[in-house]
């Protein structure tokens, strides 16, 4: 089981993302996008492609846009190919924004992106812990998880989805995660439970196969129990909720 963790141009969560995969049993490598463009064939050596969080190109021209355009020009076919195989792709935060800009998620009509990531309703950067529920049990990434306590840290985390497409997304069961409140009910857009004003409290989307997951919260930052706020008062043992996502990737190939 090998994971390729992408880096370069301001992506910045590659170390902790790789670490999370390694702890659950993957072998992995951080590969700079320029090296991948030079030699795209190396993708064949990997079963998981992870785009970590960060600030690629400083979010200029829209979060994830510039990196998505670079991939589109140089690596798009290979990545589509990867997504059509029995392999997994995950984009976390900036990675999520990149996947959305590439149209790899929800990928209902191919090629052109159908969803946009826009600025948080609050207008400011939000680094805070939220709770999400899993809304889609067909994605291998999300199997057997009900809720998770995870941090978000983004300026542009609001999923903007045209009305018709949203119907289609729901019909196809492509909503991965939704923000919930303290009573474990949908946040209904209420801040700070829903930190960005995302429609239908969407925190993650998947493609139709469920093997591509684009999520705004950071599971790698909720990996160990001591990552969780006020962990001294909690009875978590070794791991936090984020661990479950990485374990699911492992189980998929086990």
């Amino acid at each position, binding site marked *: 089981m090998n994971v390729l963790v992408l880096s370069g141009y*301001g992506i910045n969560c590659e170390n902790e993302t790789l670490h999370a995969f390694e702890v659950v049993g993957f072998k992995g490598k951080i590969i*700079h996008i320029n090296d991948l463009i030079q030699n795209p064939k190396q993708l064949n050596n990997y079963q998981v492609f992870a785009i970590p969080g960060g600030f690629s*190109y*400083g979010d*200029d021209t829209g979060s994830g846009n510039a990196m998505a355009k670079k991939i589109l020009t140089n690596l798009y076919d290979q990545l589509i190919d990867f997504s059509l195989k029995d392999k997994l792709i995950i984009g976390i935060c900036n990675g999520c924004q990149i996947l959305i800009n590439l149209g790899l998620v929800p990928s209902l009509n191919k090629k052109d992106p159908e969803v946009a990531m826009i600025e948080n309703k609050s207008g*400011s950067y939000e680094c805070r812990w939220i709770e999400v529920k899993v809304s889609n049990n067909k994605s291998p990434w999300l199997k057997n998880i009900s809720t998770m306590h995870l941090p978000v840290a983004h300026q542009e985390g609001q999923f903007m989805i045209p009305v018709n497409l949203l119907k289609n997304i729901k019909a196809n069961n492509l909503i991965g995660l939704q923000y919930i409140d303290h009573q474990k009910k949908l946040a209904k857009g209420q801040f700070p439970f829903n930190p960005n004003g995302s429609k239908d409290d969407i925190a993650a989307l998947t493609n139709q196969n469920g093997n591509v997951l684009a999520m705004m919260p*950071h599971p790698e930052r909720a990996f160990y129990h001591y990552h969780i706020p006020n*962990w001294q008062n909690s009875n978590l043992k070794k791991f936090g909720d984020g661990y479950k996502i990485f374990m699911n990737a492992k189980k998929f190939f086990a």
Partner: protein
Amino acid sequence: MTNTIQILSIEKTGKESSLQKEHNNKSIKIIDGYFFSRNLDDEKFTKISKLISNDVSQTILTKKNINKVLSSYSNFNWVVEIKFLPGVTDNIATTVKEIIKDNLKSSFKSFELGSTKIILIKGRKEDITKISKNEANPLIQTIKIYPFKKFLNNFKKNQFKIEKVKLPKKKYSKKEINLDISDYHLSLIGKLGIEENDRSRRGTLGLDLESLKTIRNYFSTIKRKPTDVEIETLAQTWSEHCKHKIFSAKIDDIQEGIFKKYIKGATEKIIQLRKDNFCVSLFTDNAGGIEFNKDWIICHKVETHNTPSALDPFGGAITGIVGVNRDCLGFGKGAKPIANTYAYYLADPNKKYQLYRQKNKDPMLPANFIAKGVISGVRVGGNCSGIPTPQGNVYFDDRFAGKPLVFCGTVGIIPKKIKGKLSHKKKANPGDIILMVGGRVGKDGIHGATFSSEELDPNSPVSAVQIGDPITQKKMSDVIIRELRDENLYSSITDNGAGGLSSSIGEMAKESGGFIVNLEKVPLKYNGLYPWEIWVSESQERMTLAVPPANVKKVIKKFNARSVEATIIGKFIKKEKAIVKYNKTEILNLDMEFLHEGYPKLNLKTSFPKIKKEKKKIIKKSSLIDKLHKLLSCPNIVSKEFIATQYDHEVQATSIIKPLQGEGRVFGNATAIKPLFDDEKSIALSQAAYPQYAETNPYDMAGCSIDTAYKNLIVSGANSKKIAILDNFCWCSSDEPDRLYQLKEAAKACYDYAVAYQTPFISGKDSMFNDFKGFDKTGKSVKISIPPTLLISSIGVVDKISHLTKMTPDDDDILVVLGNTRNELQDSVYSKIIGYEKSKNPVVNSKDALRTYRKFEKANKLGIINSAIGIDLGGIGIAVTKMAISSKKGLTIDLKLKNKISVDQFLFSESQSRILVSMKKNKLANFKKIFKDSDYTIIGKCTASDVVEFKDNKKIMRGKISDFAKSYKQNIKGL
């Protein structure tokens, strides 16, 4: 054909909403504009617009659709167009250029572009003017306000323009400066700068007459005239900023100066006293380093960026944070930045100070503009660099109206050994190539001037205006830390900060002997720079490396593969000479000894200052609960949650004690990160400064700062034997004997308390002239000096995560105050907000304090302490309420135990070295055993209720926790 691309968001953006809210709900729309230096044909327009926009969320304006699209939002009638002045860093434009280059390959070359923000409003001209004042800074941006109709016309007729950097065409010829002139003319060179052929002056060199005479003597001995480059270089190298002349000067009877005697002296004494020296690198490198565990070193550095932040708060602060990140990159062979810290000392954002640099013109930026800009500068710098920013604080005082203090710090980590060699040792060897990597060189921050453009008053004393580019730096940093350092491909590294190449190369060359630099090789942002400008420019995002010739090709290739420029600009030599050439002409040739040590040493005298007595304020009659609400909601105590949530403190997945603590999210005094996946050791961080105590007694003020910064780490669970501190002195009028007296006193306290606590100084920085000299709104001249401010930053190692404490007690816990509470209300928050009668200023008794700290440490390791919070601003009253807010648990406080002081003195005194702790009932016996010969007071207990209650002999006063939380979480007015 068109020369602009303009894009707007289909739905209302968060930014638009907040602007609308701030401006009486006027209809507002923001357009992202890109102005090109060339016309785009339709094909290019379509291709490029598609590359930089999003079909789903945005609309691209065209001549055909513009009327329809914009009228669908509102009947706009005014427009403001905001773009950067030529030569100011435009990060968005850089990205767009890169996108075009990457995706359109060779089909579109040689063009310039600038990013623009265009704001449309339905409202009056006053409204748009007000918006422009809140959104733009005339020092770095052009602001054009015009009617909407003109905007439409401009759009349709391609009348948007990008202003390029226009530098007069000039050919450089070596310029020799005659110093054999009168004292008067000599001092003019120092004050106004070197005279150009057209008789204009280059701008102040900051050289006094004595320094210029020293230079004259040197050149008369070597029998030639100095070149302009030599004088500029000496001015940079000898500046207060680089040489810290005041700290190294003889002062009264202290021959060696206060740095050597009190700061470095303290550290040397501590190392001598302690057998377990954990210091690795002290004072000489870009940051100070201590041992973290057997394999790793951590380093810490804190810088200030005050003047730049006063002029361009966003640019000043972002440059401050990415600049101090480079100090870590330049520590030893290159440490990876793992945490940022910040501390802002600002004027009240809700007040209008109306200060002017010149009579009736050149206004200071409003206090809220400065506050907002500073906060967002560090946000963008830290977040975009992927470095967590967990630790910080903000303090407000009117005396920062003329100069804000902006402290930015970074912690780094580096393996002890790299390929068997000690990583903190570096040495540029003779023959090593000088490689400049990262950004290019422009006019940024030369004598601090931006340039050109009529909007800028030519006489305004504008200094260093730069805007950091965190992404360029991140790319460079990744190559250094990940791909070069551990391969041992370079022999030395340092950052380009103040003084640019002249300073970085000059410093590094001390390791080899000397250097030869060919300035024409330095890559430039635009043509037309004079050699001296290239040499001293402070353009950001650059590091200088010393690379053995055999590795140079490999190193350059690695940088280029990551889209980072790396250029050979010279070599290090053995001979102790500093040599600079420009197109083969030698324009600088100085002895290294003279360059670094030739400056005339100062001889300072101090005198006891007149103490300004605080005006007696009558205590306003109000209830205790009322007073608590007033204090909780005052800007210096109120929660700084709004900053903590916009600074990513979770990136790198190391955050273990977060800035917001407990379910009730109280802004903590200390934070901790766990930097290595395979070691449970953590790093605790804190900081403290008490400018409000300075005028009463600077010695005690410094004592309080050290005590608080140290205490906060002890409270967090750090190992007392592994705590180091950093000093950042921000002083005022440091040419006046009474200010120097205060400085000497504060420095003396630094020695006394550091030695008493055995906590060494590992790094520090000073900024000595934080004064504003200008005019008020009536044209009267005013001088506003900051209160002397000493920021002590503390960094410590926590051995086990089980030692980390929390501030949330559990039901039935006993509450105990450790330490002694005295009537020390002078200069306290209480005295400012509520009033005071007669009181003393807080004084630290280091013996008592240490007794408390050692016992606390022991009790905590034994698991006796259940929760703890350091007592500081607002005293016990505020510490208790914060504990309740954080845990959402009720507390009962017994006021009968207050001893001989009044209730208010007991609850609000800011006596130092105190900790509020809670413990389970069954631990009390053990606790008493440990603390038997030490001061403590059992003050109450934790209850399952929703109130904090204070019991007196006669009555019970209650306040609901949710009400306290509301006061504590109030917005700061003006922000």
